[in-house]
Each structure stands twice: as structure tokens, then as C-alpha cells.
């Protein structure tokens, strides 16, 4: 996994909490900084794609590892 500036563990949380928490965490970051999100909700894969498309915050990476989903999102 590439470098990131902040990490958000949304494990165990269900829709829409991972997105809402990620939005909050991104709000506290400067443009260009990268947020690493860990989630267990399988729906979060499509949700973070959609979140990225609609908000312009680029989804740099999305993968499953060890039963968890990992996302890297760059603050626009």
C-alpha cells in the first residue's frame, strides 16, 4: 500500500457510516493529502468509487486484503 497521511478505521461500521466518517476526515486534510480508509462493509467498495466520482477526491487505490477493504483517497 502506497504512502498516506492519515488513517481511518471504519471496520465494523455499516452504510453510510464509512462514507460519512471519510468525508469528515477529508475535511480536516489539506489538498493533495492522502487518507487511508479501512472498512469491512462490502458495499463500501462501490460506495467509495461513487463518492470519489461525485466529490472529485481521487480514489488512488481500492483493494481487499485480509478480509478487509482498503481505500486510498486523495483530497482534491
Amino acid at each position, binding site marked *: 500500500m502506497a504512502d498516506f497521511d492519515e488513517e481511518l478505521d471504519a471496520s465494523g461500521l455499516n452504510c*453510510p457510516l464509512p462514507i*460519512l466518517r471519510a468525508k469528515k476526515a477529508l475535511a480536516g486534510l489539506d489538498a493533495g493529502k492522502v487518507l487511508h480508509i479501512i472498512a469491512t462493509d462490502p458495499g463500501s467498495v462501490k460506495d467509495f468509487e461513487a463518492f470519489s466520482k461525485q466529490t472529485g477526491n481521487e480514489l488512488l487505490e481500492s483493494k481487499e486484503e485480509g478480509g478487509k477493504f482498503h481505500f486510498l483517497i486523495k483530497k482534491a
Partner: protein
Amino acid sequence: MEQKKLAIIATKGSLDWGYPPFILGSTAAALGYDVEIFFTFYGLQLLKKNLDHLRVTPLGNPGMPMPGGMEKWMPVLVTALPGMEAMMTSMMKKQMKEKGVASLEELRELSQEAEVRFIACNMTVELFDMQPSDFIDGIELAGAARFFEFAGDADICMYM
């Protein structure tokens, strides 16, 4: 690009139907939408400071899954028995906690933090003799015309 707008009318005051307005409202706000929710009739229950009174009922709710698939054979009359509603409500709350589903209070708070605006229908507040002081802070009391002021320009309008 101009900010998109979502207008929601929330009319139901049960534990299950309390979720859609707050889930969709908070998510839309996270996606950058400007959101207003107009609470009317039973939907006003969702604005009370304390939400412990909200319940889910199996009565007249044939789509509600019950433990062990009971809903397939249980006579409708049984769902009307005293205690059934309380039992299903506590089971639903337990299930939600186990599955990491947010509480209504949490989603409501996240909505307000994300600047979703809540409007309480003034007419129904008076009709039911409700006390605005029972509501959480930050509620605007207004009428149908006020709703259309925002909804008229909305990209999406939902009635729930």
C-alpha cells in the same frame, strides 16, 4: 458547477422508517448536496430530543423478516398481541448494533453536522399539540410554501 439540491419530506415516525431520511440526507450532504428535510405528521417524532419511543411493528408489516422465518407461518393476529411490538423493537435495535448500523440519533447528528437543514411542519406541530421545546436544536418551524421555496429548485425530491 452549481451545487445539487436534495429535498426530502419525512412523514413516518417509526424506528425503521426513521432511517431513510437521515441516511440519504447525510450521505447526499457528504457528496456535496445542499439538503433540506421537511418533517410533517408522524415524521415529527424524528425531531424529538429523545428517540427511545420509536418502535417497529410487525403488525400489518408482512415484509418484515422475523427470527427463524416465523413471519411465514405466524398468524397476523399474533403480531397484534401485547408485547410483540416491544419485542420486535428491541430485537431490531440489537440486530442493528451487531451489524454496525448507526443509531438514528447518530445519523441525525451527522446530518446536522453536515449542514442538512431540518424544517418542522408548523401546522402538524399545532395539530398534535407538540412542544417545539421537545425538539432538538436547530429546527425551523415553517409551512408548505417554505418547503417549495427550496424544493422548487431541487434536483431530487423524495417523499418518505
